[in-house]
């Protein structure tokens, strides 16, 4: 344990003791390298303890629930033991540690005072824990079903929140749409063309992936976690691999770490280029749609040449890479990516000169800095609203410690700001890819895992994906199996933000606003 961590541990312990009125045992998790602290708190103390950390500027990362079954898979409880559920609230102190509050709940009455009134960013986490684990966050302002649409009591069917009043009408959209897109139900309350309120209902693609991997080996779990969605595969495979590497004490070779950064930036690049095109589609600007769609296709083909998969699946794995990057794919990568970036930049320059186009973007879908902070916005959405928030810079993992990542941001918080942030980040990613393609270290692409993880041990890993920071919480089971895994994707964090931004805008501007956030449904629903 380093001295820095010891000091942090003591100061956090003191802060918590002052807040809850009695000493709180704080311990260092993960050997201290990850800068992670764990504290067991009682359900009654959770609010005060969380409040104390918020006072230090901490941000909500996730709230994960698990139960006795998880403990049993972790070898911690004998077979017919009472199944005590638990929740863990995870917060990150800026320039400080990540703190996990572990709250064990009574068996018959798994309730604790809700954190949502204090931490609005936790609203969906708590609803999910309520749906999937029966854990009751008392005092939660909106405990409607989130994941499981058909509740246990059919007398209380899922209801959308709507506005009432003279001339207010409801506009239900989806989950089946006129185009081929992911399913989501959006209930607009509108007057004329102005939106008063938007209630979003997702989780139509809930496949129970987290439950599916429980009890499986780490090798079996990887492809399932990776496929939570089709366009954040490197991010999800990386957070899973990092968590496994923490648990097993494995250090991947330099080539693998650098390659992961290269792949992550390719993923960001093709997503951002596609998203810029999608923003054009949101206003029906065919010029941008076709020009940027073409460049995205070129990037996908580079992905295929590099890894054999257009969406980069099956490459990143615990211990390094499952497959080394293709040497021929790597050969021309730098110049090609640079050329594509030039094309994208010239298209963006033309788009910005189109008054009709920019007129649609400016002032549309404004996310204020205050709202972004309160609701826990992540990624491009946060950075376009004046928040400096980028895991690559804030908590660099792996080769990001050695890579120059330009800081990008805007303050207007509207669609135009998100458009500009995306365009600049795409250029930054292309530069990183071009540099790494020429300087990838030689050597092995993977090492075997250093051992089996200790049953019951927990690891937390995060990575900045194209949509923001995705965090994965992994509890190891016996025989190198998974006891419980929880993936909180950036899309999960940002969906409530989208819904909150829309009121006050025009109904036909919703697709544009939605595309400017460009969130996944699949990795939200899991």
């Amino acid at each position, binding site marked *: 344990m380093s001295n820095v961590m010891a000091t942090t541990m003591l100061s956090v312990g003191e802060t918590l003791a002052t807040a809850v009125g009695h000493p709180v045992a704080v311990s260092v998790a993960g050997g201290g390298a990850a800068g992670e602290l764990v504290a067991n708190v009682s359900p009654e103390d959770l609010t005060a303890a969380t409040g104390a950390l918020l006072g230090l500027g901490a941000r909500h990362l996730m709230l994960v629930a698990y139960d006795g079954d998880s403990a049993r898979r972790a070898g911690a409880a004998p077979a017919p033991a009472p199944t005590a559920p638990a929740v863990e609230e995870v917060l990150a102190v800026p320039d400080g540690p990540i703190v996990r509050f572990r709250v064990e709940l009574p068996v018959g009455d798994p309730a604790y005072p809700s954190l949502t009134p204090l931490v609005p960013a936790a609203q969906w986490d708590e609803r999910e824990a309520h749906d999937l684990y029966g854990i009751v966050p008392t005092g939660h302002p909106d405990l409607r079903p989130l994941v499981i649409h058909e509740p246990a009591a059919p007398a209380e069917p899922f209801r959308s929140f709507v506005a009432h009043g003279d001339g207010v*009408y*409801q*506009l*239900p*959209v989806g989950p089946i*749409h*006129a*185009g*081929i897109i992911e399913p989501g139900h959006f209930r607009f309350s509108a007057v004329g*063309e102005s939106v008063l309120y938007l209630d979003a209902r997702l989780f139509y693609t809930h496949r129970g992936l987290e439950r599916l991997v429980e009890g499986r080996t780490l090798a079996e779990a990887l492809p399932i976690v990776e496929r939570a969605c089709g366009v954040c595969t490197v991010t999800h495979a990386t957070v899973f691999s990092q968590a496994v590497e923490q648990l097993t004490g494995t250090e991947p070779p330099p080539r693998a770490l650098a390659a992961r950064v290269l792949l992550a930036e390719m993923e960001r690049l093709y997503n951002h280029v596609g998203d810029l095109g999608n923003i*054009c*589609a*949101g*206003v*029906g*600007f*065919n*010029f941008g*749609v*076709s020009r940027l769609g*073409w460049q995205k296709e070129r990037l996908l083909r580079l992905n295929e040449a590099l890894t054999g998969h257009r969406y980069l699946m099956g490459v990143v794995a615990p211990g390094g890479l499952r497959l080394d990057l293709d040497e021929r794919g790597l050969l021309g990568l730098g110049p090609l990516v640079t050329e594509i970036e030039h094309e994208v930049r010239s298209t963006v320059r033309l788009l910005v000169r*189109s008054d*009709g*186009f920019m*007129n*649609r973007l400016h002032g549309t879908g404004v996310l204020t800095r205050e709202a972004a902070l309160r609701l826990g916005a992540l990624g491009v959405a946060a950075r376009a609203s004046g928040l400096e928030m980028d895991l690559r810079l804030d908590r660099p993992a792996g080769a990001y410690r050695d890579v120059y990542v330009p800081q990008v941001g805007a303050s207007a918080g509207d669609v135009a700001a998100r458009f500009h942030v995306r365009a600049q980040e795409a250029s930054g990613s292309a530069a990183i890819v071009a540099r790494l393609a020429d300087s990838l270290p030689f050597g092995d692409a993977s090492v075997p895992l250093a051992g089996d993880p200790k049953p019951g041990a927990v690891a937390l890993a995060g990575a900045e994906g194209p949509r923001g920071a995705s965090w994965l919480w992994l509890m190891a089971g016996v025989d190198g199996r998974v006891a419980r895994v929880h993936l909180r994707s950036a899309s999960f964090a940002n969906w409530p933000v989208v819904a909150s931004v829309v009121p006050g805008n*025009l*109904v*036909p*501007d*919703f*697709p544009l606003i939605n595309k400017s956030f460009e969130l996944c449904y699949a990795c939200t629903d899991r």
Partner: protein
Amino acid sequence: MSGSDVATTVFLTQLQLVTFLVFAPFLAATIRITKARLQSRRGPGVLQPYRDLAKWWGKLPVESNASGPVARYAPAFMLGAIVTAALLVPGAAARAPLAGWGDLLVVVGLFATARFAIALAALDSGSAFGGMGSSRDVAISALAEPGLVLALAGVAVAAGSTDLGTISAFGIIHGVGLLGPAHLLAAAAFGIVIIAETGHYPVDNPETHLELTMVHEGMLLEASGRSLATLVFASELKLVVLAALFSAAFFPFGAATEMAPGPIALGLVVGLGKMLVIGQGLALIDATIAKARIMAMPDFLGLASLLALTGLGIRVLMP
């Protein structure tokens, strides 16, 4: 009416009916192909709109539980109104096939009737998008109508008649001398009206899959089978009629002034050629600009009214 007049009427009616009906899907196809090429896509073939119509026509419509007879019969009513308008507009000759049965105000009225029918059908389907599309479409048409009427009033004042055949003949006699500022302003206004009436950029995106942004497509979302075929065909035909109206009122050159086979054949070819040019113009606009906010429509269509009014003012004050 003499015997030869009746023969001319019958002949022109048959000719115009057949060419317009056959040509309408073709015009739609050329617009789509040009748009696709401008977006570096190959695009569908020329026959695709015909295939679509044939496919839909072979299917019975699926009706929502909320819809009633209005949704069932309104498409035919709409198509009837547009077909009637098609016969009141000069095509191959400087004379409408059904000349004397209705002037340009009747044509404008028939367009309004058609729109009323499709808006009612969309409302009757009971879907939120139908209602939304109808309300937007009716709002846009209410904004476009002054421009349409004023632009046509300009040429009517010049020709001293609201009969479209007379206006055409007047234009052909005056030739290039017609192209004064008043005439060009009215033509520009009418161009904007064509964009709004046929649902092209920046007013509407005819190819969108985003329900919330739809205007015309929103009204078609609940239509299927024969109803859909009828509504789509009526919309394709409407563009042909509007283009014919545009060339008859503003650029009538090429239309036959004597009822002989040669001039009529030439007039027909030139008339269809002008429609293709108008279609290509719409495709070019569609491919190069973004759709405007719906709240910008009063400005855009107000511009049409303003141009037309200015043209009319010039004509009245400086004859």
